[in-house]
């Protein structure tokens, strides 16, 4: 067989390619699969959080804010534990960003709260003197698009097997279930239930009234998303 191969350079090349490719796959694939598996404690996004994520993308927050903490002492002191690849398992697309005009937001849910975000998005410089971040006042009146977020959730659940309605293991050994509605009406009801909890911690009367009417302003969804970043 080797004599035959030596006389047929094309098939010899194919053989060499196969051997090297196999070695590569054996080395790369298992560790890749391991690293991309969700970390314990990483949950899929709920309907309101998915909506907020779309608003985050729509307003290009990722142009100025990264979501990737590098393993340097100076970064972990400021932002918390460095990022692990499995923490992005449910991010489609990931929002690592490539530039920090503002701070990293990977774990902003750990150290900022609803009322702070409310003040800050309305007038960033009023809370952080010298901030160059623009105000996002329209988010307080624009109504969030729940059906589109539900479509994204549905795609994630059906095509990417994101585990909605299934127990997700948490760090403390318990499990949590992230529910997904069966249809748009149900999804909207679930989003509204989440929004009511957020709005209860907010001060803006127009936002509170809108949520009471059954409408969800964009700011509520965005805050739900930011609070989920942990």
């Amino acid at each position, binding site marked *: 067989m080797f004599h035959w191969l*030596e006389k047929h350079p094309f098939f010899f090349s194919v053989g060499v390619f196969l051997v090297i490719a196999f070695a590569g796959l054996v080395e790369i694939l298992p560790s890749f699969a391991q690293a991309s598996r969700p970390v314990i404690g990483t949950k899929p996004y709920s309907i309101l959080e998915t909506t907020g994520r779309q608003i985050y993308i729509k307003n290009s927050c990722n142009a100025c804010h990264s979501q990737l903490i590098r393993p340097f002492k100076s970064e*972990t002191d400021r932002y918390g534990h460095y990022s692990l690849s499995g923490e992005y398992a449910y991010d489609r697309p990931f929002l690592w960003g490539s530039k920090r005009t503002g701070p990293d937001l990977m774990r902003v849910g750990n150290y900022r709260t609803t009322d702070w975000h409310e003040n800050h998005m309305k007038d960033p410089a009023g809370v952080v003197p010298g901030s160059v971040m623009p105000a996002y006042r329209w988010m307080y009146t624009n109504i969030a698009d729940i059906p589109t977020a539900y479509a994204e959730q549905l795609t994630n659940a059906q095509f990417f097997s994101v585990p909605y309605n299934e127990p997700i293991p948490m760090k403390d050994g318990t499990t949590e279930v992230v529910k997904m509605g069966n249809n748009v009406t149900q999804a909207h009801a679930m989003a509204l239930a989440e929004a009511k909890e957020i709005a209860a911690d907010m001060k803006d009367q127009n936002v509170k009234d809108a949520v009471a009417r059954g409408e969800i302003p964009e700011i509520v969804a965005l805050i739900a998303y930011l609070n989920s970043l942990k």
Partner: protein
Amino acid sequence: MNKLYLWGIIITIIMFAATFYTLVITAGDSGKGLSEILSNDIINSLAIAGAITLVIITVFVVIKYVRQMQTDTAQGQLIDEQWDGIGEYLNEIPKGWGIAFILTMVWGMWYFTIGYPLNAYSQIGEYNEDSAVHNAKFESKYSAITGDRLVDMGKSVFLAECKVCHGLNADGIDGKAADLNVRIEEKTVKFAIENGSNNHLLGSEMPMPDRNGLFNSNTGALITDAEIDIVSKYVANGMSGAGEDVFMGTCAACHGEDGKGMEYVAPSVATFTPELVTNILNHGKKGSIGQMPAFERLNAKQKEAVGAYVTDLSK
């Protein structure tokens, strides 16, 4: 003389000439004489010497092997097998090559089992080392500081972590967070009385009851709206003014007659204490303004320092 040597000498001369020509150009560009360039800088002289040696060696080594190809004849026994008509001699492998081959295998095994796994660079490994060095330095430098230095440290931590909500002057930015220049604001006292409080402060799991569990022992009845108003003003006023009797009748049982709290029972409402601040940093707090998150990534000394700074602010 062999024609080959003649060619060798001609090529050598051409290459020397090229080297010389390059030197003349360089000298012309720099505005210095040729001898000046060579004598002023040993590196230049060495480079020229190296170029000349290289030319001579290259030319004559090439000549040696070309002659060998011309004159050598094959010797030794051929093996039976042929590859596309090319045969091979049945020779011993060269000793030096054989030793190098075996040493390479030994090195390969060492590298595979020990060399790479134990000495490989890892970003996380470097991070862990950096953190350990930093923490040790922090420990040796700051673990024993007290008094003014602790307050200074608290101020710098405050400016890094707390000012985003509480403001540069710790005034809470127009009610967006607690004003830390006073121990407690009237609305905060009211909120705690109306809603109760359980922030796991001072290690106690016991919640403070809401207004439906707060009796005024002077009147023997639940605390009233008027009493809440007056006692809130009393506490926010730094435990002075009207309302002392309500405080004594309702709050003093847990918070102490002077309002300074009791260990494992209730926190001080008269002054900040480092323990109280550390507790809030550990557990976070939900009150009249909103929620304050826990700041677990500060280390124990930093929390103590923030406590000292905040206590100092409201004095």
